[in-house]
């Protein structure tokens, strides 16, 4: 390391591969001193102007703010506050276009300026050396200082790093054509910049500081050298003019000969870089207590009559700046934020200046002509020679164009710095960088999606596991309960009764199919009256429900057919059927009530009988279930009608007659379809009913719930159960 520092001190410069020499055009704007523009009426302060997360808003509409007042507050990592650039009132907080290539809108604080430009109480620190490192870093954070070179990386993050720093590189290269903001800043504020750099050195304690400036800025080099006089640790180094020498990675290579590892950060190799503008902002923030509310912006291009560098408040709309600098719109209008190599087009002039804005370029169509049609790649390899990262742009082009993302990654797409040198030299005018950006964005999206998919899979598996566990737990519980009951029963009455009960149940079921009368006879045989009665009641209920269901089915069918065929008789039938159905339903409900009573009495049997068939019951709230069942029943009815209507659709001519016919008498297809539907429905209903039954069992068991709460809805619940059971029965018949 020592030898490296010696070598750097000796004046040795390394080189980076590739690079291009686009026309610089810096003479347009670099001869005038930095001046101020008038204060705009409204300032549009984007809440998030840096890389990272937006900080949390502190103001609301109607608040009066003073210049330098924080509008947002840092609460998490990679957050950075924004400040009111001037005094006034917050009139709106809305979505507004931002300084981003997408032209999208995000949260923006609109401040109506009052023209007074009143400052908050500044808290200048005369001697920052007295402050601790943490205090200074906090101050930098609170002042919203971000890298002003173009990426707006929060500056405090760079200084929080605990890795030892050997070389601090101050980037005054400004390799982008047209831009002269840093050039002018260095010429006019060299001492302040040095002071800012000293704040950084105080924090980082580097072994040496290299201020790198491209050798096409002799005035800036002279100014900085003069300001550095007597400071042995500081070196001002003129580096050869070549784009993109100002790129962080390239600059590190030029100054130290080292490369930042792929995916790493400069401090991994003991280097930290800061832009000269950032150093100036840090000076302002610490020594003057002024947060970052304005920056130097180069306004240039042949379409502005007064090109130059201006102090511009963050949040000033581009339109306002252009209006003051004699802008004449080209046709079509063409505005670039940033330089011609890496800047982005802005789609409208409402875009405000943000921390990343170092240049507003309004070129004429002659100086930066419209891109021409993309021609075939002829594999000339000029892009390979121009690439500063040693990539193979033409291979990346093939793979990104074909969306072969894995191959593009194999060719190290991620290491592309999007400097645009390849696209600049391409004789076929292929927008190479654009292809890479798309591919990068897609790869990123894919990665996020994949992560999400992984998470979803995990959650899905966790859920399945949980369901399985719950089911098992329930089964165990039931088993235990059954055993407990069994034990209790044995104590009470003995096994005989139970056998009889079981017999009665079986017989009841059998009888039900044949006739209700027989069940009575069977009943009398049984020893336990309650059980038998319950069975009868249930059978009746079932039958009633069945009828009701049938009626309902016919009813629905008729409604459908009536609509289809528009036959009056059908309508009559419909009405009749409806009435009948209603009666049946009422009956069913009555019966069901009775059945329910019996069931409650007969809790044990029902429970044990149904236990084995229990599906995956999950709920603890019986009422919700009940409601669900009702809802479903209603839905079913509707669905049935719809289904029928469809069926009738195909057989319109026969519909009227068919509607009246019993399902068994209907022709094959329809009957089958109906049967299938009914079966499905029945199954669903049955499941619900079973759940319910079980729940009621549980309820009775625990019986902690007051009965009166249920009384209101009970009837309906019972009806649903009855209906469901009827369907199951029907299903049996169908099969």
């Amino acid at each position, binding site marked *: 390391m020592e030898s490296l520092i010696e070598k750097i001190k000796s004046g040795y410069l390394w080189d980076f591969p590739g690079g291009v020499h686009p026309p610089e055009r810096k003479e347009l704007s670099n001869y005038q001193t930095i001046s101020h523009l008038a204060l705009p009426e409204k300032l549009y302060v984007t809440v998030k102007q840096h890389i990272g997360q937006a900080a949390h808003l502190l103001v609301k509409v109607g608040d009066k703010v003073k210049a330098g007042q924080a509008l947002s507050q840092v609460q998490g990592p990679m957050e950075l506050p924004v400040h009111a650039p001037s005094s006034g009132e917050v009139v709106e907080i809305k979505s507004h276009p931002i300084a981003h290539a997408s032209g999208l809108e995000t949260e923006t604080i609109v401040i109506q300026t009052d023209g007074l430009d009143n400052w908050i109480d500044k808290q200048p620190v005369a001697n920052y050396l007295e402050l601790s490192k943490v205090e200074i870093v906090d101050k930098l954070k609170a002042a919203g200082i971000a890298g002003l070179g173009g990426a707006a990386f929060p500056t405090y993050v760079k200084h929080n790093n605990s890795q030892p720093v050997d070389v601090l590189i101050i980037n005054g290269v400004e390799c982008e054509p047209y831009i002269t903001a840093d050039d002018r800043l260095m010429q006019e504020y060299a001492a302040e910049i040095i002071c800012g750099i000293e704040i950084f050195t105080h924090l980082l304690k580097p072994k040496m500081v290299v201020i790198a400036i491209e050798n096409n800025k002799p005035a800036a080099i002279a100014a900085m050298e003069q300001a550095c006089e007597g400071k042995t640790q500081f070196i001002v180094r003129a580096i050869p003019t070549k784009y993109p020498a100002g790129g962080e990675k390239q600059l590190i290579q030029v100054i130290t000969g080292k490369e930042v590892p792929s995916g790493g950060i400069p401090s991994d190799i003991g280097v930290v870089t800061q832009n000269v503008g950032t150093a100036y902002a840090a000076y302002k923030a610490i020594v003057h207590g002024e947060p970052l509310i304005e920056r130097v912006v180069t306004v240039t291009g042949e379409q502005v009559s007064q090109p130059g560098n201006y102090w511009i408040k963050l949040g000033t709309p581009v339109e306002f700046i252009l209006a003051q600098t004699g802008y004449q719109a080209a046709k079509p209008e063409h505005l670039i934020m940033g330089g011609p190599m890496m800047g982005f087009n802005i789609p409208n002039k409402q875009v405000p200046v943000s921390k990343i804005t170092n240049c507003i370029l309004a070129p004429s169509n002659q100086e930066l002509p419209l891109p021409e049609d*993309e021609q075939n790649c002829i594999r000339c390899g000029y892009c390979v020679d121009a690439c500063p990262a040693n990539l193979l742009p033409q291979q990346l082009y093939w793979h990104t164009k074909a969306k072969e993302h894995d191959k593009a990654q194999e060719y190290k797409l991620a290491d592309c710095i999007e400097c645009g040198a390849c696209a600049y030299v391409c004789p076929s005018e292929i927008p190479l960088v654009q292809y890479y950006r798309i591919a990068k964005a897609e790869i990123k999206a894919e990665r996020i999606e994949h992560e999400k998919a992984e998470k979803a899979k995990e959650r899905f598996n966790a859920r399945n596991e949980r369901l399985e566990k719950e089911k098992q737990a329930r089964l165990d519980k039931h088993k235990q309960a059954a055993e407990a009951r069994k034990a209790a029963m044995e104590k009470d009455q003995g096994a005989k009764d139970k056998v009889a009960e079981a017999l009665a149940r079986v017989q009841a079921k059998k009888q039900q199919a044949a006739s209700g009368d027989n069940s009575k006879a069977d009943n009398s045989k049984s020893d336990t009256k309650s059980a038998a009665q319950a069975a009868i009641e249930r059978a009746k209920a079932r039958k009633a429900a069945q009828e009701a269901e049938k009626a309902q089915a016919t009813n629905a069918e008729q409604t459908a057919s009536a609509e289809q065929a528009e036959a009056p008789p059908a309508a009559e039938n419909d009405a009749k059927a409806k009435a009948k159905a209603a009666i049946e339903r009422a009956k069913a409900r009555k019966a069901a009530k009775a059945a329910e009573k019996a069931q409650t009495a007969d809790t044990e049997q029902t429970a044990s009988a149904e236990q084995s068939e229990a599906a995956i019951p999950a709920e603890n709230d019986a009422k919700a279930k009940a409601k669900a069942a009702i809802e479903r029943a209603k839905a079913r009815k509707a669905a049935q009608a719809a289904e029928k209507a469809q069926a009738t659709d195909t057989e319109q001519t026969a519909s009227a007659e068919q509607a009246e016919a019993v399902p068994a008498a209907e022709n094959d297809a329809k009957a089958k379809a109906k049967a299938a539907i009914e079966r499905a429905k029945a199954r669903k209903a049955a499941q619900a009913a079973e759940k319910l039954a079980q729940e009621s069992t549980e309820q009775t068991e625990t019986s902690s719930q007051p009965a009166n709460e249920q009384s209101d809805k009970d009837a309906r619940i019972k009806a649903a159960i009855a209906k469901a059971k009827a369907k199951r029965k029907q299903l049996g018949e169908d099969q």
Partner: protein
Amino acid sequence: MSILIYALIAIGVLAVIFGALLGYAQIRFKVESDPLVEQIDEVLPQTQCGQCGYPGCRPYAEAIANGDDINKCPPGGDATIKKLADMMGVEVKPLVGSEDNTQQEPIKKVAYIREDECIGCTKCIQACPVDAIVGAAKHMHTVIIDECTGCDLCVEPCPVDCIDMLPIETKPETWRWQMNSIPVKNL
């Protein structure tokens, strides 16, 4: 005639030798890789939406491994089909149901519950395959947007139809550079 026999014998012997060699190599140099099902499952989007007709992504992965069609996954879209085709060594097929119309990337959507309309029935909670809906009975439910896979399964069970599938909003961070936003014409 004897030459023919010799030739046949020679070739037969060679076949046996090479066969044995290959067989040995297959055992000796067996490449340990993820079981096919795992690999397929990896490619599937894990929305667990069941649109393929299987209860979840893994069952579908198993079905594909057993020879089912690879084009039954609408959330995965063309990209997934392409990957599956590569993996299974079969032809890329258009997505089931989109054979005639032009293929489009499925728009990513997530579920939103209109919360004032929610009656707290918990049905969507039960339907959600990834437990991305929270809420209790008779209380309003809400979707954890970050966990939602956009599977649609909660929409149907909702008795009051208060669940909307809305496309994910594009933010500057998630914005994808679009070729068509910039007029590039291929000559």
